[in-house]
């Protein structure tokens, strides 16, 4: 952990065309303060990797609606009509990935693996153009790792070291993206002194920055 930072320091890390992983599942556990901070800058042409398209007014969906996303890699966009429209109009590229495969691809990058073999998507259009490998008589798809320049982590309870635990279902993709990105920034929902070592999900050496609480800015 390099430190607790304010919004402007975070904004200085942004640049056009970067790849950003955003935590949250239908905006539950999304880093809303960081998303707002991105929207305050003119950054554009982002590749966003996220479980879903969120909603038009919550989660990663806000970046889509604002036209900042050039390419979205997600498992589902049904809750954000603008995402579907932008795709149909050719204004945003969308790559749909099965949710479990998305989780494993992100985990693979964080874990230094060259990929994983999954049965998910076999004999569907998800398999098109991908390597199929038989293992013990069953066919699997080779799915490659997925990483990013920046991870925006939500839903976290942070301690003063920068360790992260998560609250309820807000855990979802957040611990996975923390490990798969060059820079991981957390937007905690709560801060505590020191987390129980048994309760920590993302140890602080895996976190680069934690956004300060509002009153700390």
């Amino acid at each position: 952990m390099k430190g607790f930072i304010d919004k402007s320091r975070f904004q200085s890390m942004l640049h056009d065309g970067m790849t950003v992983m955003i935590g949250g599942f239908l905006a539950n556990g999304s880093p809303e303060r960081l998303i707002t901070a991105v929207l305050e800058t003119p950054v554009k042409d982002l590749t966003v990797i996220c479980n879903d398209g969120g909603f038009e007014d919550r989660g990663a969906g806000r970046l889509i609606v604002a036209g900042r996303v050039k390419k979205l890699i997600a498992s589902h966009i049904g809750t954000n009509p603008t995402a579907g429209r932008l795709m149909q109009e050719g204004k945003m590229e969308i790559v749909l990935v099965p949710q479990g495969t998305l989780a494993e691809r992100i985990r693979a990058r964080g874990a230094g693996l060259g990929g994983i073999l999954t049965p998910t998507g076999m004999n569907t259009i998800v398999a098109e153009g991908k390597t199929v490998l038989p293992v013990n008589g069953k066919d699997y798809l080779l799915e490659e790792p997925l990483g990013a320049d920046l991870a925006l982590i939500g839903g976290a309870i942070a301690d003063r070291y920068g360790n992260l635990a998560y609250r309820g279902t807000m855990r979802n993709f957040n611990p996975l993206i923390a490990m798969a990105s060059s820079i991981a920034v957390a937007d905690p929902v709560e801060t505590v002194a020191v987390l129980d070592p048994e309760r920590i999900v993302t140890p602080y050496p895996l976190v680069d920055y934690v956004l300060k609480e509002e009153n700390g800015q």
Partner: protein
Amino acid sequence: MMDEKAIIAQRIALELQDGDLVNLGIGIPTIVADYLDPAKHVVFQSENGIIGLGPLAEGPSDLVNAGGVGATIVEGGAFFDSAMSFSIIRGGHVDVTVLGALEVDSEGSLASWIIPGKKVPGMGGAMDLVVGAKKVIVAMTHTNKGIPKILSRCRLPLTAYREVNLIVTEMAVIEVHPDGLHLTEVHPDYTVEQVVQATEAPLHVDRVVPMKGVAC
């Protein structure tokens, strides 16, 4: 008279066994929980990271179900991340998954996530669920305004190939076997002939009984 959704959900509830770990999809599958015999201890898994999903919660919540709606966790439940959630799903640890579909076919393949050029919601966790769960139950209306959804071969892009075990509609219960679809139960409001008419796929009809759990 019960509506179509209630008939389907009530019938599927009978399929869930004591001790089962079950994942219910969005829509009709979600209400299956409402019809469960309280004497059965069934545990619900939700792909956003819960085992022990409980009833919906009122007001804003840090805990949502896979539809993003505020929910609760029952005693004994646990939270985990999406990689663990899909390890549980893909790894064969979920006993039953119940999900909707646009089309199902004679081979047990299903289509549920894309109507090319028209609607592309995405597959979410469905592709993993149908590949991973021990038993896959499709919950859907028998037709789309009279147009059959149970086909010889799916026309829409597949969610998975040959993974469905059981199809439950407001008209019928259909089992998927290696030799094709077997009509096993028909709702008392319909005849076998009506079900066959509303189904594009050929149906084996040699052992049909009235739909279980339906109060006549």
